[in-house]
């Protein structure tokens, strides 16, 4: 029983990270219908930036409240700028071109970032993993029994941030002018432009928001798993994408639910079946969900107008 509870906690913790990364995927997809393949790598870059800032701050300051805020804000701001540049120079010129084109560009950016960060000259970090500093000092939040089940403070913090972000994003999308404009652009950006919506600005802002989210998610991920390395974006990005699709890509609560579900499914496969089939089961779960609900759990397949 206690290990069931522990698995549950592990699964939620892992799912939280998937959910956070999936949120960024889903935002960008919602507006541009673009699978931003480089999203995971933006996350990786953000994490390395956070790491750099933490190193600069030094051991004393990095775990103070201001230090943590500085790390998060610096990484998120830098990634927002990066997202803006990516959108401006790599995606915007292709907006009216076939969607696959932008996907290939995204793949190109992904390769450049992930392999580029494996280089070991100049300021680039090299391929070796780095230990991410404990900017949130790990503390047991809840202990049940003789350490049979342990919940850590950062697990609670991450989950709270994920759910908080989901609510904020949901409110942003459905309660603000910006959100209304986003939905309009998502529906049909040409018509939206005719209605006087500044389409370029909305898309750029969405991209910046998504990239900043990725950076935040990356740092939380680094706090959870304590190590960072250049290819991390590839794996987490793929899983998060799967999570977003399970939830119904383009749907904000769907991303969070999808992420949590995926985390739990993986966890329980390992816990009660064989760990070597974990990835197969994760993808199998995705396929089953899609075959039963072709638009994901919360998504709807738009009926084609005939």
């Amino acid at each position, binding site marked *: 029983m206690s*290990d069931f509870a*522990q*698995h549950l906690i*592990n*699964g939620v*913790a*892992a799912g939280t990270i998937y959910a956070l990364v999936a949120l960024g995927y889903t935002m960008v997809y919602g507006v541009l219908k673009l699978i931003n393949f480089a999203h995971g790598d933006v996350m990786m870059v953000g994490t390395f930036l956070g790491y750099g800032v933490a190193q600069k701050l030094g051991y004393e300051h990095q775990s103070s409240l201001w230090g943590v805020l500085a790390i998060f804000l610096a990484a998120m701001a830098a990634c927002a700028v990066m997202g803006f540049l990516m959108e401006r120079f790599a995606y915007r010129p292709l907006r009216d071109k076939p969607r696959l084109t932008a996907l290939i560009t995204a793949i190109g950016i992904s390769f450049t970032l992930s*392999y580029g960060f*494996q280089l*070991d000259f100049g300021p680039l970090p*090299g*391929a*070796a*993993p*780095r*230990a991410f500093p404990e900017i949130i000092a*790990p503390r047991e939040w809840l202990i049940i029994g003789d*350490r*049979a089940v*342990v919940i*850590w403070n950062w697990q609670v913090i991450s989950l709270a941030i994920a759910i908080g972000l989901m609510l904020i994003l949901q409110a942003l999308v459905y309660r603000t002018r910006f959100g209304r404009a986003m939905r309009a652009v998502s529906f049909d950006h040409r018509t939206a432009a005719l209605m006087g919506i500044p389409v370029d600005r909305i898309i750029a802002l969405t991209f910046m928001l998504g990239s900043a989210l990725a950076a935040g998610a990356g740092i939380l*991920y680094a706090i*959870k*798993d*304590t*190590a960072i390395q250049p*290819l*991390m974006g*590839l*794996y987490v990005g793929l899983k998060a994408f799967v999570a977003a699709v399970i939830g119904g890509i383009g749907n904000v609560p769907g991303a969070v639910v999808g992420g949590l579900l995926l985390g739990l499914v*993986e*966890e329980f496969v*390992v*816990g*009660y079946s*064989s*760990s*070597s089939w*974990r*990835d197969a089961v994760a993808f199998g779960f995705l396929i089953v969900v899609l075959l039963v609900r072709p638009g994901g759990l919360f998504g709807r397949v738009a009926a084609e107008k005939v």
Partner: protein
Amino acid sequence: MRSALAAVLTSCALALVGCEKKASAPPPPSAPSGGTAAAPSGGTPGVTGDTILLGEVGSLTGSEATFGISTRNAIELAIREVNAAGGVKGKKIEIRVYDNQSKPEEAAQAANRLINQDNVLLILGEVASSNSMAMAEKAQPAKVPMISNASTNPKVTEIGDYIFRVCFIDPFQGYVMAKFAHDNLKLTKVAVLRDLGSAYSQGLADVFERKFTEMGGKIVARETYTKGSTDFRSQLTAIKRASPDAIYIPGYNDIGLIARQARELGVTAKLMGGDGWDSEKLFELGGSAIEGSYFSNHYSPDDPNPRIQKFIADYKAAFGSVPDSLAALGYDAAMVAVDAIKRAPSFDRAAIRDAIAQTKNFPGVTGTITLDDKRNATKPAVVLEVGKGKTKYVATIAP
């Protein structure tokens, strides 16, 4: 206009490859006697007036880039030292390194290029056994000697008589830790956590499980993870349920994370592993969680042997980091090669091969290397205990 662009791009790509082929097909102008791709034994390939060209293939990018880069650094260090000491037979040594993106097909292609285009004298590398095997499949038919620095699967050197290695093979290292766990630590219940995507990890884990069971121990849990994953809590929670005395984790840098997460989950079992642990990252990633664990290795960094201390100091000075076991093996592979070239009567590849095969009691960083008739290195292993920021010698186990 569009077609012109397409045509230009195509021809550029073709021309780049094509011109290299033409450039290197005729014998290099300074070569004493031309060795062409088709007849490797015809002259003294890889040797020009004042240089000897060696080749290396490594994973400089991709999932195994960490290992490839430290190997490359160490080989570079070795070559630098040799050249600083006047080279070999009056010639300087040059090394050409190709990346294989951690994939066998790229490794085969790189080896092919080294052999047939660059005409290297011999080839060094690789870490991953599948990549080494792909290279060996190309080196053996061309009769080019190859020394693998860290491929531990027995199959690698079985490919042919031109293929050597300077590291342990899986059966030995798996046995070392099983014996240590059983005899020295007196453990009976051990769990195994292995990397599903790594042949090294699989090989060690298989042998460990078998040997440990033969010795009367019990494997109480078997879990796996995949390359690139960073969350091991689910496996560890499952292992915790079986309450083992120790967990055998033949892996690389993942071990730091695994140790931390194990302690976080309240897993108190001892951790054990293989030479893949040996890296400065062990302490950085593992922190205090890794203290008190054991792993088998080629040498002990606190060995007062000046050879070892000099290597560690030089590597630190050159690359700013502490060498890992792969670096040490890379260094030894290069040194064994140089030693063989020195001993060989000529620069003929067959002669070099014979010289390598006769390597006996070579004083390497990773121990005294003797190549047996299966072209594998036989040397004793040491077991180290992880302490605060450094390791401590515990035992030596002979083959």
